[in-house]
């Protein structure tokens, strides 16, 4: 190998190394205290196995929507139920009342005026948005073709950063970051980053796992 080729090779290696270290630095900056999970394949397998042990969740939730440009924040609270598989009930109680029940492809929405039933199959957007919440809480989000995923961890929490692939979802979300408790693989929070910079954080508190929930709770 001539000196010039060797030099060029070394410089390239340095540049690549520099890029890698730059990526790592930016990742740390993005999620301080977290490191990337390198072996995604075996992680996916383990995540899928552990998540299936969560058969039901009953919890309270707090939703914080921040409108960045308007320096305005609104906090809403309510109750949350999940039952494997594909059944979710979100009941907002303060400062407004609103109910969402997702049961397979059937969705019920109840606001202060009306009750609306939607079949997710007949509406692609509804289907995709419906699946995000269900996939996040039942641990199937890593199998979703709607997102590319990066995974980070610290001692107690897993962070799954999902970037939408489809144009439809890209319009609504820049990324969705799911935070998962390592001790029981249940969702701790869902952070939705919108393209214009607004964020919505849904946090689950006082979780009760695997307690029986009547099917009527999810009757749409």
């Amino acid at each position, binding site marked *: 190998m001539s000196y010039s080729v060797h030099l060029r090779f070394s410089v390239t290696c340095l540049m690549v190394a520099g890029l890698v270290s730059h990526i790592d630095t930016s990742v740390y900056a993005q999620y301080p205290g977290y490191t990337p999970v390198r072996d995604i394949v075996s992680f996916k397998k383990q995540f899928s196995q552990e998540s299936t042990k969560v058969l039901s969740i009953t919890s309270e939730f707090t*939703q914080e*929507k921040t*409108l960045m*440009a*308007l320096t*305005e924040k*609104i*906090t*809403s*609270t309510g109750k949350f139920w999940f039952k494997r598989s594909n059944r979710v009930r*979100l009941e*907002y109680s*303060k*400062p*407004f009342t*609103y109910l*969402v029940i997702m049961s397979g492809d059937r969705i019920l*929405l109840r*606001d*202060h*005026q*009306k009750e*609306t039933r939607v079949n997710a199959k007949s509406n692609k957007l509804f289907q995709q*948005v419906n699946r995000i919440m269900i996939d996040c809480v039942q641990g199937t989000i890593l199998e979703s073709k709607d997102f590319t995923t990066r995974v980070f961890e610290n001692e107690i929490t897993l962070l799954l950063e999902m970037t939408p692939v489809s144009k439809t979802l890209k*319009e*609504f979300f820049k990324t969705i970051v799911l935070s998962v408790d390592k001790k029981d693989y249940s969702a701790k929070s869902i952070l*939705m980053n*919108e393209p*214009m910079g*607004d964020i*919505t954080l*849904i946090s689950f508190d006082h979780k009760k796992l695997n307690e029986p929930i009547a099917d009527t709770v999810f009757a749409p």
Partner: protein
Amino acid sequence: MNRLLIRYSLLSLCVLIHGCTSDYQFLKSVRVDNGCGRVTSPTWVGTSWYHTSVDVTGKHLSGLVLIKNMPDSSRRIVFTSEAGVTFFDFGFDQNGRFSVHSIIKKLDKKPIINTLEKDFALITGIPFKSGDVQAWSMGNEIYFGVQQKKETAYFITNKDCSSLRRLELGTKMKRKISVRIARNGYPLPDSLDINHYTFPLRIQLIRFEKE
């Protein structure tokens, strides 16, 4: 057959007469009482959140509307879903000029944006801020109106000017939009009920206090 023809002709005549009747034909021009107009004119102050439902051509959707006066005297109107996704973010600058800061593709259509611009301009009192106000009486109500190209925006009070009854937007012939206002009205109305008369659209806003 003859009877059927007569019935059809009468029906057509009724439709024709009704079609030619102006919703504002009985307005009588009166002197503008500036004191009254100032007191009852819909003026928006501060920031409010509304739980909002929209019924349009048989479809129903709901969400949250934020109306916020910004420090530079501009105004922003944001519509989000209850779960937090932003559908649109509109603005009116200090001079009432309208702009779209963001809107999802499904709603990004000129007729939709024009309709919403008129609705939100009317309920936040923008036409009445700087235009020349005229006044008319009809029945036991006073109509204060500001001409806007081919339409007139009205705020309507009772005869003694003690309360604001509703807002309207219409052409010379036809009422196009009316807004019913809750008892606790401006500067931060408790509820607003916007009805369109040229196509089936109803928007209801109910104010809630932030936690």
